[in-house]
């Protein structure tokens, strides 16, 4: 086979293919991009509203707010301390996503050519920098809105300087993540970030303990300084200048380094980013969570320990919960709640307790539903296990109750142990917490059996309000089953009289018990 000497750029063929596109195809591609921008803006607006609601609850001077002696920080001060952790979080996200990526097709057809496409690598780098800048800017904007809403002074210059610094910082973080990808040290970066975050938290913890031990309000003092610092435009200007220097040093040289990243690695990152986009477009995190499995080591022998003595169904449920680390978000949520109540002034109020209960119930039923999904929704499993489908469903229901119980018990104990329950409500509080369990199990069962969202079906029924309402109800049923279970708890925390409490309890049971009983009876 003879070889020509002429240089060739694959873009030539891609341009030819693009030129073939019909007007309809061009419009479709434009509208796809436009819809994504719109979706991000809408999502951002919703997140801002939700965070403002949380801030309102955190700062509300509601009745029965308990001021714990350990609570040394105002909300605004806690937010000021949060910023470095957010930066670490964004860097970790960029590391997880690549950030450089290509599609599987580009990996197979373009990256195997001897002369790698300069245009493809340039686009890959541009996308990574854009991803970093976008992620950090949105994070910064969200944080800044929360800072202002919680009492920091607003200055248009700070907004401008912070926005620019946020964008630049994002590009720098993308550059750092790119370096880790180029030199193949993404795991090292992950460990470093974990140690840095842990070190920061330990330092804050020591300052907090120092404040408790009477060594002055060091933590409050430091966070007050930080609030002033973040509110000054000059700080962001300075950060922007340093970041710009960092970009020149760290991002510039990545231009040539991309050649060193293997196409397999780039394509894996592409698949992960694709699954994130799919998860966002489906409003269903399951797709992305499945992609994260790639990060965990596979193929090694795993011990089942005493779980091996259980029947297959509870065994699968427990191993799924343990090995996929789905228990972690619930544990983090419990720990965050305790920290908030302990450290932030005004957080220990009934409204906050109610809000955290709602979040916990929604989160736990989602996580348990994800664990139960393979047992409920995988066709042919009944034949594989040699068990009737009804028996599997019954055992799953029992398993969900057993696995959900420890979370409910811990939650029921936190408030009394911290002393933040309104006086005289302990017995009702315990009853209301017990009512959470069937709600969580019913929600998890519903979630496990819910099919993937069909947006096309939504579009077809969009013209008919009734059909649209039914579609939305079907989508939200698992969540509602779980959330109705919080009604008795809300009644207790809002200080309603016993008859109202009983009504709330009955309503909650009427919603969560029937699906659960159906599963247990079969």
């Amino acid at each position: 086979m003879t070889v020509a000497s002429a240089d060739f750029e694959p873009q030539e063929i891609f341009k030819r293919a693009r030129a073939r596109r019909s007007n309809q195809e061009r419009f479709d591609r434009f509208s796809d991009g436009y819809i994504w921008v719109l979706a991000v803006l809408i999502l951002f607006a919703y997140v801002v509203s939700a965070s403002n609601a949380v801030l309102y609850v955190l700062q509300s001077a509601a009745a029965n707010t308990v001021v714990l002696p350990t609570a040394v920080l105002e909300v605004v001060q806690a937010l000021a301390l949060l910023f470095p952790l957010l930066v670490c979080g964004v860097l970790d996200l960029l590391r997880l996503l690549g950030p450089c990526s290509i599609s599987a097709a580009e990996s197979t057809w373009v990256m195997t050519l001897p002369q790698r496409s300069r245009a493809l690598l340039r686009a890959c780098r541009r996308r990574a920098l854009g991803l970093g800048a976008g992620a950090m800017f949105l994070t910064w904007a969200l944080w800044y809105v929360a800072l202002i809403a919680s009492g920091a002074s607003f200055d248009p210059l700070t907004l401008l300087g912070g926005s620019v610094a946020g964008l630049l910082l994002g590009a720098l973080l993308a550059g750092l993540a790119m370096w880790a990808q180029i030199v193949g040290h993404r795991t090292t970066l992950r460990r470093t970030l974990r140690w840095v975050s842990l070190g920061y938290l330990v330092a804050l913890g020591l300052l907090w303990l120092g404040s408790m031990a009477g060594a002055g309000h060091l933590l409050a003092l430091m966070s007050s300084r930080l609030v002033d610092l973040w509110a000054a435009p000059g700080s962001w200007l300075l950060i922007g200048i340093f970041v710009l220097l960092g970009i020149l040093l760290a991002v510039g040289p990545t231009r040539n380094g991309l050649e060193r990243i293997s196409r397999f690695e780039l394509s894996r990152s592409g698949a992960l980013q694709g699954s994130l986009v799919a998860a966002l477009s489906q409003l269903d995190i399951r797709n992305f969570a499945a992609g994260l499995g790639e990060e965990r080591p596979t193929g090694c022998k795993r011990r089942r320990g005493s779980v091996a003595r259980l029947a297959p169904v509870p065994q699968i449920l427990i191993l799924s919960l343990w090995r996929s680390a789905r228990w972690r978000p619930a544990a983090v949520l419990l720990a965050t709640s305790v920290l908030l109540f302990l450290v932030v002034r005004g957080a220990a109020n009934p409204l906050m307790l109610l809000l955290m209960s709602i979040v916990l119930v929604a989160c736990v039923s989602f996580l348990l539903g994800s664990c139960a999904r393979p047992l409920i929704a995988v066709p042919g499993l009944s034949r594989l296990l040699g068990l009737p489908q009804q028996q599997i469903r019954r055992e799953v229901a029992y398993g969900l109750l057993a696995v959900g119980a420890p979370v409910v018990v811990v939650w029921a104990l936190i408030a009394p142990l911290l002393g933040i329950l309104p006086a005289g409500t302990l017995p009702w509080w315990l009853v209301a917490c017990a009512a959470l369990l069937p709600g969580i199990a019913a929600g998890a069962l519903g979630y496990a059996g819910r099919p993937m969202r069909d947006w096309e079906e939504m579009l077809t029924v969009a013209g008919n309000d009734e059909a649209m309402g039914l579609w939305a109800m079907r989508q939200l049923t698992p969540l509602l089953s779980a959330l109705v279970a919080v009604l008795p708890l809300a009644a207790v925390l809002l200080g309603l009289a016993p008859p109202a409490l009983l009504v709330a309890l009955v309503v909650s049971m009427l919603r969560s018990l029937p699906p659960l009983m159906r599963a247990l009876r079969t």
Partner: protein
Amino acid sequence: MESADVALRLDSLEFGYAGRALCEPVTAVLEPGTGYGIIGSNGSGKSTLLRTMVGAQPMVAGGVYYRGEPLREADRMVRGQVAVQIDDGAFLEELTVAEHLELVARGHRVARWERAVEHELEFFALTDVAEHLPAELSSGQRRRLLLASALVRPASLLIFDEPEQRLDYQILQRLYNRLAELRDAHGVGLLVVSHDPQLIRQSLQQVLLLEGRSIRALDAECGSRWLEGRVS
């Protein structure tokens, strides 16, 4: 110093997952113009070995050398000389079948690329669908397009993972003859994971048999008989 005449050398290569080796270390040498097969039952680690060799996943220990240098696909020389076909493959949705082959041929600077593309289209019976987009192809046609892409370009080492998948009998016969011809007449090295005794017998000389944690080197005839269940 490694001899540049040796196309591929596996030096105590250990492959597996999460730092745990699946098998004992593999040491093997593939001379130019020879064909090596990798066989074994399902789940024995054949594809993992192949993926480790080409850098699609990290090796546990040891090394893989191509012409005396560590085999790294990021190396331009390796990409120019080693054709790897280990995945089911994704396709560029806007390019036609012919354009896919044009991309590879021109990217590898094949002088008369139009003729080379035409030849592969004809060889793999893809001429009728040359102007079709990948979405319009059957799974067998997609498979043929992938194989055509490995043969439309110059290569001194061909690495395939189960090339016989989803191919009809006629195409298989032509492919096996072509591989044998490339090996004998052009000195191309072949490294193939396969379950097909005919491919092993017709196009390769030696095989590595992966069995449990052990690895055995067999001649092609013996390997074929193992695949046919005639040898334990």
